[in-house]
């Protein structure tokens, strides 16, 4: 282990590794700071959309426009996929990333 004394400190692998470790931690820190700054500056856009939602009385995000019941998920018929029965097979790709709105189903069990 004394051999290391012959090698300059800067060339030791452990030093390079620790430096990289520091860089990674720094980048992770920068990531959190960037997210925080973006959240503050991005609020204007979100507020603008919230304003539009209030003004137009919108109920849903415009994420899946392929079918009427995927466009307004919260307003869809209870059993919209194939209109047959709850959780029936979905033929639109959006059905693979969205489930039947559980909240709506729950409240309607109580209300209907």
């Amino acid at each position, binding site marked *: 282990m004394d051999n290391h004394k012959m090698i300059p400190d800067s060339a030791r692998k452990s030093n390079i590794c620790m430096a990289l470790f520091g860089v990674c931690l720094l980048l992770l820190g920068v990531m959190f700071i960037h*997210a925080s700054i973006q959240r503050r500056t991005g609020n204007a856009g979100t507020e603008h959309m919230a304003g539009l939602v209030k003004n137009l009385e919108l109920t849903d995000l415009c994420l899946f426009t392929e079918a009427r019941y995927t466009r307004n998920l919260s307003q869809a018929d209870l059993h919209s996929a194939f209109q047959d029965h709850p959780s029936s097979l979905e033929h639109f790709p959006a059905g693979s990333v969205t489930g039947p709105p559980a909240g709506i189903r729950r409240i309607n069990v109580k209300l209907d």
Partner: protein
Amino acid sequence: MSNLIEKQRSILDFTLSSLMRRKAKNISLFLVYSLVVFVLGSAMFFTQAMKREASLILKEAPEMVIQRLLCGRYEPVPLDYLERIKNIRGVISADYRLWGYYYDPAAGSNYTLMVPRNNPPARGKIVIGNGIARNRMLYREDILSFRGYNGINHNFEVDDILSSESELVSADLMLISEEDFRDFFGLSPAAATDIVATVRNQKELITIANKISELLPDTRPVIRDEMIRTYDSVFDWRGGILIVLISMAMLSFVIFAWEKASGLSAEERREIGILKAIGWETSDVIAVKTYEGAIISFFSFCTGLLLAYGHVFFTSAFLFAPALKGWSVIYPDFRITPYIDPYQVVVLFLLTVVPYTAATVVPSWRSAIIDPDSVMRL
């Protein structure tokens, strides 16, 4: 103290040299490991940010929407329901909404037609979302022709285009006057799409929803909290094909990592035997293996996480777009506001770094405690 630090640095030097000797194996492990963290991290960042965005945007959605069901389907609601809802104690206001869908064969896409309560467009004019404008290459004063319910074509002039910043809620919107809406869809003046109501006390929302259901048994109230929860469930960590795919990738990685980490090669065993024979202690051998696992997993974790952050928040999760777009022709062009939940980052760290590091230690401890002579003979 300085001796201890120097010893650990020397062990670290040795570990790094050892890793460099098996470059191909370790680089491939680093790449697969980073990829798994990248995919998991991307899904985590995306779902968290979208859930937050949805809850912030929809906090201004109507408090309660009352739909009418007929033959189990969603049907226009008669306007005389309005007075009956207004008369319920606790309801401050109730008003009707006019909106519907139109399939545009020219673009092959669905539009959401809506009559705004405030400042509706003049007759014959429409305000369109940026998604429609982009898709149909429309500008102000352009004319659009749509086929009405009775087969007659209606011409509409584009009066304005909604801002591109609001695409997440307005990409496919088409704002239209009430007269045009009723003419176009043939909707009776005595009916509307649904009713929105506001209540005096938020705590009474469920009670009032129940009252409406009792008073008008063919209606279904949907409260704002449910609208927000819908998006929670859409982007929920548990749901969706992305997570299923990720689980498969995760499982493959676990098998891959376990095999790589737990099964020491003959060369590694011999190395441990030599180290023991020249006087290394068992704890030093375990330290080398722990460092190996920790170095690979830590750097893979950081690389994967940083790439995931860039992917979701700088490129709007372009790899996930095909899964989200599906068959949609109009898809909003939106930038997601970054939101990182530190708790989830810690969970991801614990789920990826700790098991791998632990998996490398156990087999090396087993090899380190047996006789060096017998290990070297293997």
